[in-house]
C-alpha cells in the first residue's frame, strides 16, 4: 500500500534535500542519481505489485473516499510511473555531463525533482482536483526549467508556453467546477458512479469537451499545439529531453483516464470528436516537421504527430485500440527522449542544432550513428523496432473499426515521419562537415571525458527500444491487461470506493 505514495514522496524528499545542499554541486548530483534510481526501483516494485493485485489504493491521511484524496495505481498508472522512473534516471545521468554550474545555482536539480513529483502525482492521483494541483506543480517546475539560462529565444518560447498552458489550466479548473456542480464530488471513481446515475443533459457533453480541450492543449493536440514547437528547442537539452518524453504524455494520460472512466457514455460524440482531433494532430505535426531544418524543432513537431497516434488509440475505443494506445505511449516516451539525447551529443560535438551546420557524424562517430538510427527508425515504424508494433496495433485497430480516413492518415504520416528521419540522417550524419565548422571535438583531437555520461543513457534507452521490438510479448501483455482495466472501469471504482459502493446510496 505504501508503494503507491513513494513515487511522489521520493522526488519531493530529494527536491527538499538538494535545495538544502544548493551550494554543493557534488551533493546535488549525488542526490539526483540516488533519488532517480530509488524512484526507478520503487516504480518497478509498484508495477509488479499492481500486476499481482490489479489496483493499489491509498487514502491519504486516512480520510476515506470519496471525501479525502485517494492515490490509485492501476496498470496504466504503474506503467506511466515506471516510464517516468526510467526517463528520470536517463536524464539524471545525462545531466552529469551537460549541466553547467550556473544552471545548478539556479536550482536545476531541485526543479527536476519537483517536476518528477508533479508528473508522478498526476499519474497516481484518483481525485480530479488533486490532478489539477499536480498539473500545476509540474507546470511551475517546467516554467522555471524552461528559462534556465535566460536566453532571448528561451523567453520567447516560455511566453507562448506559459500563456497557452495557463489558458488550459483555466479551462480545466472551470470544467472541474462545473462537474462538481453537477455531481457534488471530486473523487474520480465517485464521479463516474454519480454521472452514470445522473440525468444526461447536454451539460455533460459540454464538460467533456472542456476537459478534452484542456488536456488536449497540455498533450499538444490539434489545434492548440503551437506552444510546443515554439518552446521545446530552447532549454538545455537534458530538460527538453525530459519534457519531450514526459510532459505531453501527462496530458495524454489524463485524456485516457477521463475518457475511459468518466465520460464513456456518449462515445459517438466525444470519441468521434477525439478521432478527428487525432487525425489532424498527426497530419499537422508531420507536415510541420517537414518544413523544419533544426534538429530539435523537427523532433518537437514529431511529438505532436505521435500524440495523434495515441489519441487515435483512445478515440477508436475498442480493446485492441486501447492496447495500441498504451503500447504507443510506452514506445514513444523511450524513443523520443532518446532522440533528444542524441541531438544533444551532436550539439556537443559540432556546436549546433542547425542541420545546415551539422555533418560528418557517420564518418567520425559510426557508433553514434547507429544509436541515432535505432530510435529514429523506430519512430518511423520500421520492423523489428518497437515503433513497428505500436503502429501495427493501432492501424489494425483502425481497420477493424472501419475508420478508413484516420487509418489512411496514420499510414501516410508514418511515411512522412520516415522522410523527416532520413532528412536528419542525410544532413547531420551522411554529408561532409560543412565549411567553417570546427571539427576539433568531432575528430576527437579535443578529449571530452564527460561524453561517456551522455552515451550511457542513450545506449540504455536504445537497448530498451530493441528489446521491446524483438521481445515485445511481455509489454504487449501488460498493455493488454491495462486496456482490459480501462475498458471495464468498474474494477477501478470498486477498488477506490470499496464497500461504500453497495453500502451508501447517498
Amino acid at each position, binding site marked *: *500500500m*505504501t508503494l503507491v*505514495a513513494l513515487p511522489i*514522496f521520493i522526488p*519531493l*524528499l530529494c*527536491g*527538499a*534535500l538538494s*535545495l*538544502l545542499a*544548493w551550494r554543493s554541486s557534488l551533493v546535488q548530483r549525488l542526490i539526483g542519481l540516488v533519488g532517480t534510481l530509488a524512484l526507478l526501483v520503487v516504480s518497478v516494485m509498484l508495477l509488479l505489485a499492481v500486476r499481482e493485485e490489479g489496483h493499489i489504493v*491509498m*487514502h*491519504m*491521511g*486516512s480520510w476515506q473516499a470519496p471525501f479525502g484524496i485517494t492515490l490509485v495505481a492501476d496498470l496504466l498508472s504503474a506503467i506511466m510511473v515506471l516510464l517516468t522512473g526510467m526517463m528520470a534516471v536517463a536524464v539524471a545521468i545525462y545531466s552529469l555531463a551537460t549541466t553547467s554550474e550556473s544552471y545548478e545555482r539556479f536550482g536545476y536539480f*531541485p526543479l527536476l525533482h519537483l517536476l518528477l513529483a508533479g508528473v508522478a502525482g498526476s499519474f497516481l492521483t484518483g481525485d480530479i482536483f488533486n490532478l489539477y494541483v499536480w498539473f500545476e506543480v509540474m507546470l511551475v517546475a517546467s516554467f522555471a526549467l524552461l528559462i534556465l539560462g535566460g536566453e532571448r529565444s528561451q523567453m520567447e518560447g516560455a511566453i507562448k508556453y506559459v500563456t497557452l498552458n495557463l489558458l488550459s489550466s483555466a479551462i480545466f479548473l472551470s470544467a472541474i467546477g462545473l462537474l462538481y456542480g453537477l455531481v457534488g464530488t471530486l473523487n474520480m471513481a465517485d464521479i463516474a458512479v454519480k454521472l452514470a446515475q445522473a440525468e444526461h443533459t447536454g451539460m455533460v457533453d459540454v464538460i467533456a469537451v472542456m476537459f478534452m480541450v484542456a488536456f488536449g492543449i497540455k498533450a499538444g493536440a490539434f489545434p492548440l499545439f503551437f506552444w510546443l514547437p515554439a518552446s521545446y528547442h530552447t532549454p538545455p537539452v537534458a530538460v527538453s529531453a525530459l519534457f519531450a518524453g514526459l510532459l505531453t504524455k501527462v496530458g495524454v494520460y489524463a485524456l485516457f483516464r477521463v475518457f475511459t472512466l468518466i465520460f464513456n457514455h456518449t462515445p459517438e460524440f466525444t470519441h468521434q470528436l477525439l478521432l478527428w482531433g487525432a487525425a489532424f494532430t498527426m497530419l499537422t505535426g508531420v507536415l510541420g516537421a517537414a518544413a523544419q531544418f533544426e534538429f530539435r524543432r523537427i523532433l518537437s513537431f514529431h511529438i505532436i504527430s505521435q500524440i495523434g497516434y495515441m489519441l487515435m488509440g483512445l478515440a477508436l475505443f475498442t480493446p485492441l485500440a486501447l492496447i495500441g494506445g498504451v503500447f504507443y505511449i510506452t514506445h514513444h516516451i523511450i524513443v523520443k527522449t532518446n532522440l533528444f539525447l542524441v541531438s544533444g551529443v551532436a550539439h556537443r560535438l559540432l556546436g549546433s542544432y542547425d542541420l545546415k551546420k551539422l555533418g560528418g557524424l557517420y564518418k567520425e562517430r559510426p557508433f553514434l550513428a547507429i544509436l541515432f538510427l535505432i530510435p529514429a527508425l523506430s519512430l518511423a515504424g520500421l520492423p523489428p523496432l518497437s515503433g513497428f508494433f505500436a503502429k501495427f496495433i493501432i492501424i489494425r485497430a483502425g481497420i477493424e473499426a472501419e475508420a478508413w480516413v484516420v487509418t489512411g492518415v496514420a499510414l501516410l504520416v508514418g511515411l512522412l515521419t520516415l522522410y523527416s528521419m532520413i532528412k536528419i540522417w542525410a544532413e547531420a550524419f551522411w554529408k561532409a562537415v560543412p565549411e567553417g565548422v570546427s571539427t576539433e571535438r568531432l575528430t576527437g583531437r579535443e578529449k571530452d571525458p564527460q561524453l561517456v555520461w551522455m552515451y550511457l543513457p542513450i545506449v540504455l534507452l536504445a537497448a530498451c527500444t530493441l528489446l521491446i521490438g524483438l521481445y515485445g510479448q511481455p509489454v504487449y501483455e501488460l498493455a493488454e491487461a491495462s486496456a482490459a482495466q480501462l475498458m471495464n472501469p468498474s474494477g477501478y471504482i470498486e477498488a477506490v470506493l470499496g464497500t461504500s459502493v453497495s453500502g451508501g446510496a447517498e
Partner: protein
Amino acid sequence: MMKPGTLILYAAARFLMPLQLMFSVFLLLRGHDEPGGGFIAGLVAAGAFSLYLFAFGSELTRDLMRIDPRTLIGWGLLFGVISAFPALLQGQPFLTAQWWPIPLPGGVEFKLSTPLIFDIGVYLAVIGTVMTFVVALAESEQV
C-alpha cells in the same frame, strides 16, 4: 533603492518587527482548529522581515535572518515531507495525523502532532519564498 531611514520608519520597524514575529508564532500554533496556520503565519513573519528590509536594507536583513531564504524553503519542504512519514510506523496511510499530547503544568496540554510539523514546514517555506523574492527585488534595484 527607496530612501533609507526616515526616522519614523526606523523606530516603527524596530518596534513592530518583534511584535509581528511573535504574532506569527501565535497564529502558527493556534492554526489547527481556529483561523491561522502555517501559511498565514508565514506571510505575517515575511511581512515583518520585509518591513525590516525597507527600513534597514537587504544586507542587514540577511544578517538578521542568519539563514539564506533559499535554505529556508528547503527546510520547509523537508519538514512538510517528513511529517508524512510517522504514520507509516503505525501502519497507516501517508499523512495520517499522529498526536503526541504533552501535558504541561497548570492543566494545559501541548498538542505535539504531525499536522503541527507540517504547518511549521509551510511556515518556513512561505517565509523562505517571500523573502527570496523580496531580497532579490531589493538587490536588483541596488545594482
